[in-house]
């Protein structure tokens, strides 16, 4: 079952126009010639806009489709484990962002912090990590959106991959982070409207009692096609392990993503930052994967869905359930959801990349004497070029499994987190110890992945080693380090572009409290 291609094009044109119009209005109202205005919205955004932006940036296409599959594979614990695994990393990020604002109030990117804290070579390495992470995240979103447009409306995958990538690149190029945030409010409303209409409808059609009885049979009947004794165990060990892997993967995806730092630095004050992230993630975001895991994953178990059936293999569990219970309108609703999720996550990633391109790459390495106007010009065009490259990357991945990319990206992006986090708190951590810790975590993770034969455990152990290994190396090495880093250097750091702080606590002079340990 597919909806008409005309409906797909209509959706694209309507949302495309809405997003570009919002961005253009924002750019006209606020201007985007200053670097700080373009990449951190002048550091003046209020609570609601930041929390809506954080919510939509963390709703990935996989939040909807992946959580539903987790519900199918792990039963009632699947959605919950997906949710906590992806939400808890924000409780590392929130104190990290607060600390960064306090010890280095005039920073714009995490690469600037790394450069001041660990030196230029380290900054270049982290810049590459930051760029690769955004590329990976954005390509995944483009692949998810293009597939959805293909199976929902029969539209050409390649064309969709390029068009949609250019779409989210264009609204970032037009109005930078502020444009992305205002677009987020619109996308937030659309996502919420669809989730809170479609999901209760599917739930009511399935019936609570029917889902329970169906899942009970899955748990108790060894002959059931999806037999899983833990289907109704909310504390199932397999599901918990899945949550830990999700946590290890998500830590890197958040801590190395400039988009989240940009949103955190854009908050008008630290109180706004803290509450916007808490409400956006714990209160608003966390229930979404739980709902998808429970209703779609649990519902698919309850109807004893055969995962190998041709129709399910073609589309996946979520589209199958949406079209089975809501018909063509269900497919349209799901397409809207996936489009909004993909566009916002891609937009957030590119807004972060625009900051790295304008502040770090162009000004520091390509053109030292660049004016702010030249920096913003470069940031805009670089984002458009990257948008095109992301589309090409998504085209190249047509028909290929993303599983291996996911596995290696988890190992790759978890390893550099420990020096970044510990370096904000510890005076003793130096560049040499940091430089040793990252390769140890990375190589240890890869060795674990290839050496362990059990496919249920190798991914899990590899990710944990990659995340925890560098932290352990640093904590063991710290007592043997003689010198201390002077945190006042970060406090007194002045950016090469104009920075206006609105928060009195951020602007306080460097005295006492800024130091670590």
């Amino acid at each position, binding site marked *: 079952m597919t909806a008409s291609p005309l409906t797909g094009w209509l959706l694209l044109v309507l949302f495309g126009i809405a997003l570009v119009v919002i961005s253009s209005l924002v750019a006209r109202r606020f201007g985007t010639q200053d670097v700080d205005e373009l990449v951190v919205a002048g550091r003046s955004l*209020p609570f609601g806009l930041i929390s809506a932006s954080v919510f939509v940036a963390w709703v990935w296409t996989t939040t909807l489709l992946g959580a539903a599959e987790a519900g199918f594979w792990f039963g*009632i614990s699947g959605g919950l484990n997906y949710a906590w695994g992806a939400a808890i990393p924000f409780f590392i990020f929130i104190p990290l962002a607060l600390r960064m604002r306090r010890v280095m109030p005039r920073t714009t990117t995490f690469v600037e912090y790394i450069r001041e804290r660990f030196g230029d070579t380290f900054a270049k390495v982290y810049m590459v990590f930051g760029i690769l992470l955004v590329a990976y995240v954005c390509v995944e979103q483009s692949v998810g959106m293009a597939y959805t447009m293909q199976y929902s409306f029969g539209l050409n995958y390649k064309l969709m991959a390029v068009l949609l990538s250019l779409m989210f690149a264009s609204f970032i190029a037009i109005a930078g982070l502020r444009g992305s945030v205002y677009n987020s409010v619109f996308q937030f409303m659309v996502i919420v409207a669809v989730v*809170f209409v479609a999901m*209760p409808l599917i739930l009511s059609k399935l019936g609570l009692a029917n889902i329970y009885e169906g899942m009970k049979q899955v748990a108790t009947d060894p002959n059931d096609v999806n037999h899983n004794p833990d289907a109704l*165990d909310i504390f199932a060990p397999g599901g918990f392990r899945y949550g830990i892997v999700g946590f290890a993967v998500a830590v890197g995806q958040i801590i190395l993503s400039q988009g989240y730092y940009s949103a955190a630095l854009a908050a008008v004050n630290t109180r706004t930052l803290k509450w916007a992230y808490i409400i956006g993630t714990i*209160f*608003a975001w966390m229930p979404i994967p739980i*709902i998808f895991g429970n209703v779609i994953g649990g519902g698919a178990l309850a109807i004893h869905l055969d995962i190998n059936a041709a129709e399910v293999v073609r589309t996946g569990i979520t589209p199958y359930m949406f079209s089975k219970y809501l018909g063509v309108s269900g497919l349209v609703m799901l397409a809207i959801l996936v489009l909004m999720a993909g566009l916002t996550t891609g937009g957030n990633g590119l807004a972060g990349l625009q900051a790295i391109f304008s502040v770090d790459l162009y000004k520091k390495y390509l053109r030292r004497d660049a004016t702010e106007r030249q920096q913003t010009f470069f940031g805009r065009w670089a984002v458009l070029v990257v948008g095109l490259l992301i589309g090409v990357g998504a085209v190249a991945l047509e028909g290929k499994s993303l599983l291996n990319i996911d596995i290696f990206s988890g190992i790759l992006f978890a390893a550099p987190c420990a020096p970044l986090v510990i370096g904000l708190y510890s005076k003793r951590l130096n560049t040499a110890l940091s430089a040793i810790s990252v390769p140890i975590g990375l190589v240890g993770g890869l060795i674990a992945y290839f050496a362990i034969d059990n496919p249920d455990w190798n991914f899990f152990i590899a990710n944990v080693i990659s995340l925890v290994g560098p932290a352990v190396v640093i904590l063991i090495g710290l007592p043997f380090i003689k010198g201390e880093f002077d945190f006042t250097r970060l406090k007194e750091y002045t950016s090469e572009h104009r920075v206006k702080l609105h928060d009195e606590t951020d602007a306080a002079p460097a005295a006492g409290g800024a130091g670590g340990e």
Partner: protein
Amino acid sequence: MTVLSQGLFNFWMVFPFVWGGIGVLIILVACIREIVLTLRANGRRGG
């Protein structure tokens, strides 16, 4: 094998909607208020 009771199961299926509804409502009210304030400030600037 642990099997959730029907009552707890029903609660766990419905509760995330209430939980998410509260979070979404807080953000929605804040966003509308902030956008209205921005538009008013814009109007004053224009006049």
